[in-house]
């Protein structure tokens, strides 16, 4: 049973990354009508910013959790301002091609300087409260041994996902955003600066991906191609869940992570492919995705 719980936890962690990434993709798609192929690359950049902060300036994990998404988010906003905004009005496919090119550039540059092997990033050992050293070590829950860092990733990701959902679905800012998704021209007529909102939305989506990158750095190591394969799985997640609903993205992300983790336990040969197989099944049964509306 220990191994089952361990795989369940791994599944929840991967599910957290799927949720954070597909959430960002959905928010960006809603405003920009672009599927951001560079989402895996910015996830990787988040992890690298954390790595640079620690090794060049000595700034640790907790600050990286705040700084990396901001830095990468600003980078994303610059990309949106200088390039993506010129695609407005063109076929959606050009957005995919442009961001694919960006992903190649970003990943290629990092590969040149860091190769393909992983760089270590350790779990923070502060603050030290009682017998605990930051997020290092673990605790015995009786039925399983829980590494604290892994539990932290799941809970923190869930909180961030729910906060994003709340912001978009329940606040005034979120209502502007949803309105601009439906009808940007009308919202603009009300005096709201829609282009600036689009830029900020892109920054937000990219920032979420970078945050996922920081969270994954101590678990998966920091590698230039860490996001390249992940993004394809996230695309499958997005196809399964549909991009119509924020909560749908979150639930689908976590659920698929758990299913993948279970597959690793019961039938490890299929653990790489299970998400894609599920995508095929969902397409056969309900082509619009689980939460999607008809296009």
């Amino acid at each position, binding site marked *: 049973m220990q191994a089952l719980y361990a795989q369940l936890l791994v599944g929840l962690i991967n599910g957290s990354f799927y949720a954070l990434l597909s959430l960002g993709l959905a928010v960006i798609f809603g405003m920009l009508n672009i599927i951001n192929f560079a989402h895996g690359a910015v996830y990787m950049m988040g992890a690298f910013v954390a790595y640079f902060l620690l090794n060049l300036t000595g700034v640790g994990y907790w600050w990286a959790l705040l700084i990396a998404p901001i830095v990468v988010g600003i980078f994303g906003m610059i990309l949106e301002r200088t390039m993506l905004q010129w695609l407005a009005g063109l*076929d959606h496919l050009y957005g*995919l091609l*442009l961001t694919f090119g960006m992903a190649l550039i970003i990943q290629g540059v990092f590969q040149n300087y860091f190769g393909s092997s992983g760089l270590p990033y350790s779990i923070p050992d502060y603050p030290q409260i009682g017998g605990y050293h930051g997020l290092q070590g673990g605790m015995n829950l009786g039925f399983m041994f829980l590494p604290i860092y892994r539990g932290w990733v799941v809970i923190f990701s869930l909180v961030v996902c729910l906060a994003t959902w709340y912001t978009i679905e329940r606040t005034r800012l979120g209502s502007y955003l949803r309105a601009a998704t439906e009808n940007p021209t009308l919202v603009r007529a009300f005096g709201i600066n829609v282009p600036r909102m689009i830029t900020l939305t892109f920054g937000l989506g990219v920032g979420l991906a970078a945050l996922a990158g920081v969270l994954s750095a101590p678990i998966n190591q920091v590698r230039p191609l860490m996001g390249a394969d992940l993004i394809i*799985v996230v*695309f499958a997640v997005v196809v399964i869940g549909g991009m119509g609903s924020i909560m749908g993205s979150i639930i689908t992300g976590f659920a698929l992570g758990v299913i993948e983790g279970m597959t690793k336990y019961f039938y490890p040969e299929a653990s790489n492919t299970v998400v894609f197989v599920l995508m095929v099944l969902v397409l056969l049964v309900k082509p619009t995705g689980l939460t999607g509306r008809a*296009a």
Partner: protein
Amino acid sequence: MSALTDDTLPVTPRALRDEMIVFAAMAVLLSLVPFSGIYPFFVMQALCFALLACAFNLLIGYGGLLSFGHAMFLGTAGYVSAHALKVWGLSPELGILAGTVAAAALGVVTGLIAIRRQGIYFSMITLALSQLLYFIYLQTPFTHGEDGIQGIPQGHLFGIFDLSKPTVLYYVILVGFLGGFLLIYRTINSPFGEVLKSIRENEPRAVSLGYKTDQYKLVAYILSGTIAGFAGSLKVFVAQNASLTDVHWSMSGEIVLMTLVGGLGTVFGPVVGAFVIIAMQQYLAGFGQWVTVIQGVIFVTCVLTFRRGLVGEIAHFFRRSL
């Protein structure tokens, strides 16, 4: 859907005549290659990719469907042909047939799944399906995982043509390429091709005119996949191996790039694009990962400033359809 391509020029007898002239010139030039001192291996490789890009272009340029998983046809046909030639000991023509049929079957299966969603979802689904196949090929024994299938015998085509001679092989590949190219060209200018273009421009209207658009798209997808597979089978004789790189998503990206550089929805664009990209990889091979960066820069530049592609720009300048 806004127009992907500059397709305002009507198909006139003059346009057809122009295209036939360019086709003839291309065929003559390519058939002179063995006498020119150009490295034939490079041209053969480029021809295989050119046919692959033409097949991809049939789908995006005339059907408006961006497949981000066309490497799966290249890889599948390659593996099946290689296995048929090496393990089953089939003759080259049967090996090519086996690979092409396998790609066609793959086209039927994945087409029925992918065609259920439009636009951007179609791209993501094809990408995910090709990644699924990548993992399957990574694990199944007959592909030999990371090693791939090596040292494939070339044999005698129809028992006559010795494919181990570079010049003979070159002309076989050239005939295969020209045949595939003409098939695609014929398809584009057939009534079927016209319906396909109308679906790309305005699908609801095509539906209201009574066309079963899903069937048209499915047939186009299968045809594209089959021809892509044929190109993959031919490539086996050139490279003499079949490996995982041919199924990887970066290969799908390269196919997209070739077509984009040459010109989406142009007849000759994918051929030009394939030669440009293969030549670039050849000359920049020593720069390691910078090749990836350069490819990315070309992608970005093409999308932002050069959407018609090389051939598209020329055609637009002369107000001709090429």
